């Protein structure tokens, strides 16, 4: 998977997340902006009270965000497989494996970790047929 393909997957987050009432409810106290990066491609995600308000692909000029989840594009592809391999099954696992990293102000991420993990996992099983 390339960075551009990861961006195309994440562009579907509004439909994948906003239709899931329990997930939106879990994020109801979270409004903010974070960055997902796949290789060098930045994807900016804007959340409003648990709903995905916007997803935009960079490059950006002076775009603000609170925290970033950066990973290799190929790692995102493996992460979204229906039954991911060990190490690619969880964002924290990918950090442990060394193919992802968390940066920026981690407080809003940690305060909403289950929500953010489930948002990032939302495309699982819908990508590439695996």
């Amino acid at each position, binding site marked *: 998977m390339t960075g551009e393909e990861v961006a195309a997957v994440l562009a579907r987050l509004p439909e994948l997340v906003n239709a899931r009432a329990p997930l939106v409810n879990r994020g109801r106290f979270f409004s903010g902006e974070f960055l997902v990066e796949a290789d060098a491609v930045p994807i900016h995600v804007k959340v409003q009270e648990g709903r995905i308000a916007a997803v935009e692909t960079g490059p950006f000029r002076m775009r603000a965000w609170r925290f970033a989840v950066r990973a290799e594009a190929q790692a995102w592809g493996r992460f979204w497989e229906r*039954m991911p391999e060990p190490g690619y*099954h*969880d964002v924290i*696992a990918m950090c442990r494996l060394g193919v992802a990293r968390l940066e920026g102000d*981690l*407080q809003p991420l940690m305060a909403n*970790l*289950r929500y953010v993990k489930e948002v990032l996992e939302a495309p699982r099983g819908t990508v590439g047929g695996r």
Partner: protein
Amino acid sequence: MAVEFEPIVGRYATLTLSGRKCRIYIEEAGRGIPLLCLHTAGSDGRQYRHLMTDPAVTDNFRVIAFDLPWHGKSNPPVGFHDEEYRLTTATYTEAILAVAEALDLDRPALIGCSMGGRIVLHLAAHHADRFRALIGVECADHQTSWYDTTWLNRPDVHGGEICAAMVSGLVAPQSPEEFRWETLWGYMQSGPGVFKGDLYFYREDSDFRDRTPLIDTARCPIYLLTGEYDYSCTPEDTERTAAGIPGAEAVIMKEQGHFPMSENPARFREYILPVLDRIRSTA
């Protein structure tokens, strides 16, 4: 319609640990060889409920699980409200031996998971005569730190939520939803700072690489079982540990994570029953 009760029975006992009275919760089921069970960091003995309700286990083993002080239904000691909880190798070992002694167990077998698997190595090195066999689940001689545990106990992050979210990926994706969430519920229920305090032992006070050469498996056999999806205690960590202990056996469990006895009990029995059979055959 009559209610069908599980065979698990719980009791409380007050033990003196580090000179302080601690009210400890202990539950058990079955009869036969005592099998003492150690829960993971930040959780409690309920993780072993499936072993306690499996006749293939309880027909031959008296399965006993206790909650460490501060965990589950065991109280923290009086004065806890002014303390920061920290488990150490010394206090952990003291609690295990005190429970075994209080129950007058004759050389029990012992199974411990995660930090319970870690302490197995210390028990094997220094207290082998007290046990007939040791089972280390998700067991390794040390671990390099992979996240900042201060996130687990601070007022601007919900403790129960972050503890569960931080370990949720340690449950294998194949584990049944029911048991995945029951396992995580244990973390959601943990008292403030308890998981972090356990990780003091796990991260800071238990580099046992110096201890594994002391282990004599002829005195007390040791069995190591680790799930392939465990990225905290990785299969490589366990295999490295086993390689340093002549006679130790390591088995990597397919489609299992860090909490096999509670996250996927049906799958776990495929791995644990043969170990228990071997313990019986040498009893």
